[in-house]
């Protein structure tokens, strides 16, 4: 049995996001998968070339339109719909880009969506976390009709390079809505590694006390080549920007090393780090729930310990 899988590429116009390579690995778990990546862009050439190199990809389709400069779900979804007919599975990453877009596609198709796929058991059976990761649900589709899915990127390695899939242009002529208009994006540019792909992450909680307080984490992170994350309490209090939030309603990450500094370990936070290889907790309260999941725990005052670690490195 073969399945035709369409993956919607996430990119910024020039660079393919690593989440797409993870979707490819997920798709390869579907028996007999034939994988197509679609790149919606103004000019898709650069991104398509990167997508074509992912091993396991059979074909890259380019859907070019001046309206595709920003990933507006209401604008992209009808274009994906126009090419979706031959595909049994339509996948995108479970990032804010993919979550926003894929469910709109599912709505247009009237198809069911499996959100946050963490494992594939067959072409119709998937595992996904529910209740903030406190239960893992196995769901099964009937196999009739199409299925939309978002891929929990923390659960899959990125597909390797070395491929050379053919790149084709798809002629799509559908009327696009003008009711949704991009105004601006304020991305705090940072030289630090991207939180979602970093091998090491240091996160701070409410205990850091201020945006100033976070500086000791940035300083240590730079020495370790780590990304910096934050708990919701720290973001709500304005100590760190929203894109740094880790957890059920922030980013779900799977670094090799996660260091939680002054974070109590609420279930909503732990959801975001379940797949971290090694968790280190630094907290002055030896009873804090974070220690229940920590591989290495250190009880003490972070304002002494963090500078001390930096000194010893």
């Amino acid at each position: 049995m073969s399945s035709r899988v369409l993956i919607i590429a996430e990119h910024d116009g020039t660079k393919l996001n690593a989440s797409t390579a993870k979707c490819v690995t997920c798709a390869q778990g579907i028996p007999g998968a034939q994988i197509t990546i679609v790149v919606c862009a103004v000019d898709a050439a650069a991104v398509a070339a990167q997508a074509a190199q992912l091993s396991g990809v059979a074909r890259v389709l380019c859907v070019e339109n001046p309206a595709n400069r920003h990933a507006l779900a209401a604008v992209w979804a009808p274009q994906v719909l126009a090419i979706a007919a031959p595909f049994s599975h339509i996948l995108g990453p479970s990032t804010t880009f993919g979550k926003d877009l894929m469910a709109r596609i599912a709505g247009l198709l009237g198809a069911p969506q499996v959100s946050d796929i963490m494992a594939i058991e067959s072409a119709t059976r998937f595992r996904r976390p529910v209740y903030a990761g406190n239960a893992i649900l196995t769901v099964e589709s009937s196999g009739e009709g199409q299925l939309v899915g978002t891929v929990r990127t923390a659960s899959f390695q990125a597909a390797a390079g070395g491929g050379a899939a053919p790149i084709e242009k798809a002629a799509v002529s559908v009327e696009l809505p003008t009711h949704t208009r991009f105004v601006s994006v304020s991305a705090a540019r940072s030289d630090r590694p991207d939180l979602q792909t970093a091998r090491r992450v240091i996160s701070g909680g409410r205990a850091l006390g201020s945006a100033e307080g976070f500086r000791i984490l940035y300083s240590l992170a730079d020495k370790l080549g780590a990304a910096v994350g934050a708990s919701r309490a720290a973001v709500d209090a304005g100590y760190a920007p929203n894109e740094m939030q880790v957890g059920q309603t922030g980013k779900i990450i799977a670094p090799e090393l996660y260091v939680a500094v002054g974070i109590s370990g609420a279930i909503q936070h732990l959801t975001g780090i379940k797949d971290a290889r090694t968790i280190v907790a630094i907290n002055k309260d030896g009873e804090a729930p974070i220690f229940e999941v920590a591989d290495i725990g250190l009880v003490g005052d972070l304002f002494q310990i963090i500078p001390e670690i930096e000194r010893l490195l």
Partner: protein
Amino acid sequence: MKRVLVGIKRVVDYNVRIRVKPDGSGVITDGVKMSVNPFDEIALEEALRIKERGLAEEVIVATVGPADCQQQLRTALAMGADRALHVQADGVVEPLVAARALLKLIEREQPLLVILGKQAIDDDNGQTGQVLAALWNRPQATYASKIELSAGTARVTREVDAGLETLDVDLPAVITTDLRLNEPRYVKLPDIMKAKKKPLETLTLGALGVEQRQQLKLVRFDPPPQRQKGIRVTDAAELLAALKSKGLL
């Protein structure tokens, strides 16, 4: 009349420690505290503020689910909603079915704005708003942390992975809420009494002409894998030694 429609979902309270039933058929909900989905409280708070600013005249809350959901609709009325619509449905209501039912209510009520939560904290699907916007063929602005209404449009700031994105959407539109949009008000006792007299209308999926199809079978619930018990170290030097021995430094 300018109306705002808000989706309300009954979920297990976020403070409850979730346990999977031994037979894998679901999670334990007997005797467990149920609440309004936190994102829906935020959606309602935003709708109430829009009304208080004179930009809307009526706030309607709606839920699709079993009879118990009326408790959460009463909570929403106590918070300040003007009236409630309960679409009675037992068993699993998938996002597509919830969205189809909400669309029928939209056709009836002609709201200026529909506000839903970005995700329900039980199933964590995060789909209903987008599916609804697709079916309705109207704009969607998900993960909102700021909403500014002006004549015919909404300027919405969204929390996205890269930072904050701002969109203009023509009204009517669907907006889904993120946590930092606002802080919901507390319900006061007299309001709970008053809420009992507010209108709560019960409808059925059948009467709305929506078929309760279940496209995804729930095969099994498993508890998540447990992590191995860790070690404790006593100072920074020991911590670094432990990391080195694991090959992490």
